[in-house]
């Protein structure tokens, strides 16, 4: 019988790989920033699976709460794609 932990691990891995690919592939820079945030949060999920709760919470606090907001703050100052007009 396989270890049941493989299921959340697989789900989080798929989310993380998918969002990491979307960071590079998506056309709009805001979407890249949000996919980056999702990838960072799934890293926190891995830490929880490794029963390292403190590292997981600090990952959310530092990477999502601080660096994610910094990236968004930088994106805020760029111009939006005008091709939709």
């Amino acid at each position, binding site marked *: 019988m396989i270890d049941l932990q493989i299921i959340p691990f697989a789900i989080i891995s798929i989310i993380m790989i998918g969002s990491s690919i979307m960071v590079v592939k998506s056309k709009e820079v805001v979407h890249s920033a949000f996919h980056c945030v999702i990838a960072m949060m799934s890293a926190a999920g891995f830490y929880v699976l490794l029963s390292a709760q*403190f590292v997981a919470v600090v990952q959310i606090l530092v990477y999502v*709460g601080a660096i994610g907001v910094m990236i968004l703050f930088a994106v*805020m100052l760029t111009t939006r794609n005008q091709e939709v007009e």
Partner: protein
Amino acid sequence: MAIIEIYDLIMHYLVIIFATNDFAPWIRGVLGGLVIGAVFGGALVMVYLERKFLGDMQSRIGPNRVGGRFGVLQLIADAIKLFTKEDIIPAKADKWLFIGAPIVALTSGFLMVAVIPFDLLVIKGNEYAVAVSRMDISILYLEAVSGLAIFATFMAGWGSSSKYAVLAAFRNVAKMIGYEIPLGITVISVAVMAHSLDIVEIVEAQSSIWFIIAQPLGFVVFFIALLADVGRIPFDQTEAEEELVAGWATEYSGMRWGLAFFAEYLHAVVGSFIVTLIFLGGWNGLPIVGNLYIPGIFWVIAKTIMVMMLFIWIRAALPRYRIDQVIDIGWKVLIPLALLNLVWSTIIGLLWA
């Protein structure tokens, strides 16, 4: 005191179930559902109290038609109205960000609820915290999860493709960067004084003296930063009605707007719980009641309602700051004061231990 005896009996059986099925998932689920329902109800109570008391303070009547003289059913009428309204997504909106924003806002609120303890029961020498989940680092977790609410505002603001919403989102991010820091530093100074990052132990450390007395400066800084964090009136530049229509929620309609609005009140309720737990002694009662036994959950809820009333009072009493004044206060006043409080609490905490 028959009610209190019944409460004790219920709690006793709850603890027996807990103890026999240690961490049984369905018990956690039931307790989680109860707590979510309670906080939902708390947010509704806050909306009602706010409308009624604001009415009183501004010499108006407030809701007085639906459900008798005091308008108790007004919220239900509003909810029905919101549910039946048309759900509009603007043609130029960024659809996924627009849809995701209220969901992220509510998720962040409910994740915060998960670690809030309501009482600590000691039965046969074992301690049981009445909380959905008891973590060793719950105060740090609260800090981390409350930070996610910024993304909701940003998603809504950017996704709406409206100049008012974008301006509100910009203001919110700029404000949050400044105010998360004093909030974090004051929380850390509380943790230094209590020698723990666990909220249950922080409350237990206040059994002799509440932290509002041990570090009054920290309380003031934390309360102001919290007001900014939940976007209540002296700091509600993100939805300043006179300047930005309805801020980041301008383009929302129907139940989506309802969820965004509700998430805001949820954050305010959770914020009042945090103030109660880390500064106002949580379930440690006042000595004035003497030998009369009052359950801890009663103290927590009574103090939380007091803090909510303080929020409403401040909203009625104070005007709104300009955005540059807000940023100035955050960086030039609150952060130095928070650092000063950290030094104070480190010295006092070391002497006190």
